[in-house]
């Protein structure tokens, strides 16, 4: 049994502690947002936030998150109450196949939480752990900038 906070709710998942967090989230956790891409921390498809910081769910043992807070793309927002990043990604049509977006969105959320007005170089550095094969990078960068502006204007 592994107990932690998942997208704001307490969960206790029936599984061995040494199995990866990604299996926990997609298996007993019932989520689909965190995605498997490589299993070696090279592509970022599985990225989640662990106590607010990006972490590779594909290599992290589920047991290591006991008592901590895990946020996935599902925890950022919903179609009815989207995160500004999700709104911005739709506004910029920032994606093609979209498989990489779950991980990119949580990394971008972590970036904006620590730097509300990042420049392009900072955005690229934050997203460098993520692979996008369809070539939507520039749209994604624009979308992160757009979300930062939207969040900034709300705060102001």
């Amino acid at each position, binding site marked *: 049994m592994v107990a932690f906070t998942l997208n704001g709710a307490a969960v206790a998942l029936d599984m061995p502690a040494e199995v990866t967090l990604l299996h926990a989230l997609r298996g007993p956790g019932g989520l689909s947002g965190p995605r498997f891409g490589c299993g070696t921390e090279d592509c970022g498809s599985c990225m989640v936030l662990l106590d607010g910081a990006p972490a590779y769910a594909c290599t992290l043992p589920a047991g290591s998150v006991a008592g901590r807070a895990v946020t996935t793309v599902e925890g950022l927002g919903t179609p009815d109450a989207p995160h500004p990043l999700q709104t911005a990604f739709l506004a910029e049509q920032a994606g093609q*196949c979209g*498989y990489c977006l779950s991980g990119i969105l949580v990394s971008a959320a972590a970036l904006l939480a620590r730097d509300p007005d990042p420049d392009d170089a900072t955005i690229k550095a934050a997203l460098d752990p993520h692979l996008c094969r369809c070539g939507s990078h520039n749209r994604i960068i624009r979308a992160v900038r757009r979300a930062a502006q939207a969040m900034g204007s709300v705060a102001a």
Partner: protein
Amino acid sequence: MSGFSPGARPDDGRPKLPGSMHANRRLSQWLAFPADGVVTLKPGKVEIGQGILTALTQIAADELDVAPARIALARTTTGESPNEGVTSGSLSIQDGGSAVRHACAATRAIFLQVISQRTGVPIERITVEDGRFLGPDGAEIGSYWSLAGAGLLKTEAPADAQPKPPAARRVAGRSIARLDLPDKVFGAARFVNDLRLPGMLHARVVRPPSRRAALRGVGEVAVPPGAQVVRDGSFLAVIAEREWEAEALATRVAARSTWEETDTLPEADALAEWLDEAGARGESTVVVERIADGGVGAAVRSVTRRFHRPYIAHASVAPSCAVARWDGDVVQIWSHTQGVYNLRDDVATTLRTTTDKVVVRHMEGAGCYGHNGADDVALEAALIARAVPGRPLRLFWTRAEELGWAPFSPAMLVEIEAEQAADGTLVGWRSRITSNGHSGRPGRDPNPTLVAASYLADPFPVKPSINPPLASGGGAQRNGVPFYRIPSMRIGLRRLLEMPVRTSALRGLGALINVWSIEAVMDELAALAGEDPLDYRLRHLDDARSRDVLERAAAMAGWRGRARREGWGMGIAAARYKNGGAWAAVVAEIEARERIFCRRLWIAGDAGEVVNPDGIANQFEGGAIHGASVALLERVTFDRRRITSDSWEGYPILRFSEVPQVAVEMIDRPELPFLGAGEASMGPTIAAIAGAIHDALRVRVRRLPFTPESIAEATA
């Protein structure tokens, strides 16, 4: 993406219908009105990340006069969907879009006629608003749904159905948002990887340690409850109740299995020489031969060059995945294949059953850029699921399988000799292209082409991949014929008849090296003539659309006013994809540091009628970034037995910090046919980067990728 299409057989004696409609002639194959206010559109082309579902919805909305939101897309399924062959070759809008437009136009006309007859209101006085047919006073006199039970779609489309004139389109031609993107931004379960069926089991394949290795034995392995090891010849797999159990069991079984290995791959360090030798043993054909009929200046200078490219991987961000379930003697497969019918045929052949016992249901996968592992994993899921009748089984490849066992785009050689007259005019062109075939797709040969088929106890032979003829787009020779005015030309092709590394179609096919090599020679000829690369190209182009894209890209980039910057360079290149598809011209700017970085791309395109301007810009930009990645980084590596570039570390692709800024402008031609957008920008991008490297370093690279090593070779 080899351009074979079952819709393109116009000479069968039947009235010609547009695109895929020709082979799928009944309106009910394309459309249904299942419930009030709902239109079901049934495409045979599938979403592979390119946005096709959105574009088809736009076309249908316009021709039917319904709001796009009313249109529901049926999942492409064998036996239920029109057979549109493979979603490939940048033909989805040409084949599928043309068919949908025709089917919807015909449907609207038939409903208009019937409603007119039933109400006595003349057709010209009826308007259609969001699916409701209104009389002259604005009152509803019928709808698609009021007549849904009348069987009006149970008919062949008339050949003379008239789609709306371009000026009457209200949805097609506009940038409407992609229908699939919200699911992807909210992490919804949309991909086949996300499919969860009741009682579903998980599987992993235990791959041979090297190509063609034969399984000699499997030692005793502890198996968790409900799990099992499945073996058929050298095809070895495991099944477990939970995914992580399957993963762990596969690792244990791999450690306890013994294989007989042999050297089957060529010397990686001498790949170009091996291609030349194997080409000499291969099948030679003349692609194009024409002799000048006089009036041509005598050749005074020539350029003779040889170009080489490595095997290239698809490198999708998700490994391939499929779910299969046997119910009696029928197997259902959920797959991200590009062609449900083609896959069905190969699965049936391999299982030694009939096609009516195999049902393939399309579900989206991660981005697809050609014939990747989608079909392979689908067959494997079906093979493994035989051990657990009645239970759905999900098979997910590993990253190493995806980068190591999916088909690759073939390594190639291109040799070119070009001649120019005293005034610089290009007068002669001879080239020879050497390659494995670019299509190993399923469903086109009596033998299955899927990887597991040759590892079974009763195996199928592995045949070298075929190469589509130029008439259907060509494979190795795609874009091998320069689109410039050249009086004398001879293009030869040598197809390898041995295939140590399995090859098939990847975005651009032979166009990647052909466009680059042609444009590289054009740059050299321009330099010999003392002319600017843009001017030299323009004076050998008669076609206005070719000239237009070049001029537009040059203007976007400020080509004519460019200033030399130390360590930086600019290059320009253009092509018409498949010589009959979309035009793309690209200006690239690179920075030469410890390696080459592509910093900016300016792209002008012409894909005929544009259904979704933002979608097409996205495709052109994505193709260009893909091209930049191929140009600068990508190369499949191997030793004599195994593919060694089977991780992201071994097969790097461009990351965010390395991606160029991209500007795309499309020349919209709403009155002209669709031309397809997914592949056009890739070859010219590679070529423009090569030109930019010369501009910066005065080095003409001859081998992809353009790394410090290949630049050093060209300098020596």
